[in-house]
């Protein structure tokens, strides 16, 4: 099975594969694929370890229940699937600083981690505010022709392109 040990597949093969996966998600799970809700659940569950069941009383966790559901398993599956793919192709490697970052801002891990964390805060906050992420809105929402999906996807990229140009063209 040479195909499994290849480092990269054509983006169109991958895209069509994700599209077909989404058919089965509608057929079997009766839900579209989406990722970011799980991070709310993880976050609430961790907060619950410190503050107890009171966390569940927050209005947001009445809406997004703090349960282990298929979406949480989906996230765990993504980690496993990506690890399997990268181990099979020899593309797995432990790395603190991505090369594009290193060529602009140097190889110090701490700066990269701090910026990643700041980005993560905005990403997690924005995903919940927008009620979805690149999966839930960007792929699943747009394929259902949802207005919410198309508007969100356009804003994800508009905000992302703007911020990327600020960081790498003006600061870098």
């Amino acid at each position, binding site marked *: 099975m040479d195909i499994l040990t290849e480092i*990269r597949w054509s983006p169109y093969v*991958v*895209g069509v*594969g*994700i*599209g077909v996966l*989404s*058919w*089965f998600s509608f*057929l079997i799970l009766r839900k579209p*694929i989406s*990722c*970011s809700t799980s991070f*709310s659940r*993880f*976050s609430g569950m961790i*907060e619950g370890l410190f503050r107890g069941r009171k966390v569940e009383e927050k209005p947001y966790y009445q809406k*997004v229940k703090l349960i282990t*559901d*298929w979406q*949480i*398993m989906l*996230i765990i*599956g*993504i*980690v*496993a*699937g*990506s*690890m399997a*793919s990268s181990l099979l192709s020899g593309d*797995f490697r432990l*790395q603190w600083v*991505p090369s594009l*970052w290193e060529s602009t801002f140097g190889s110090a*891990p701490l700066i990269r*981690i701090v*910026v990643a*964390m700041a980005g*993560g*805060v905005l*990403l*997690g*906050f*924005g*995903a*919940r*505010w927008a009620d979805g992420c*690149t999966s839930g809105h960007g792929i699943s929402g747009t394929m*259902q*022709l*949802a*207005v919410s999906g198309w508007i969100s996807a356009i804003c994800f*990229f508009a*905000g992302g392109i703007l*911020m*990327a*140009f600020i*960081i*790498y063209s003006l600061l870098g």
Partner: protein
Amino acid sequence: MDKIKTTKTNNEKRSGLVWGLLFGIVFGFLLQKGGVTKFDIIVGQLLLTDFTVLKIMLSAVVTGMIGVYFMKGMGWVELYPKPGSLGINVTGGLIFGAGFALLGYCPGTLAGAIGNGYLDALTGGVIGVLIGAGLYASLYPRLNRGILKKGDYGNITLPRLLKVNEWMVIIPLSLLIILFLFWIEKRGL
């Protein structure tokens, strides 16, 4: 009777968890093979120098759209378009975008990046996303009384908005996306 009912829902729940894991494994495998578990590829897209992300997303959207609307027409599946508003999707989307560029991963590819061994994703990335999501949960009641309600359009879809048959949107949109992808390839991006 009650006992039978509970067992059934428990079984359904358990099979849902197993399916979720299997879908995740396939999804993660595809994301890694596509290269989008990598910071350089994602930020390259946002800098408009590498179009891998859009190639994957748009071909997934065309494939998915044709399939799910066909299955809906056959009565096999239901669709679940999310409700939204300008306050929700524009504001949240722009904040998300800024985070997307700084972190260099989105929630799904963040999980994929962890599987690929990327430690900036595993440490700063995950901690940040969990803080951000928790912060939102705390601010939600206040936001829900104000900005989230602005410019509400519910769970409307493009065909309903334009008052046309679904395929009158799907066919031209698919052709437009395919043309765009050909143009991208022709320009060598």
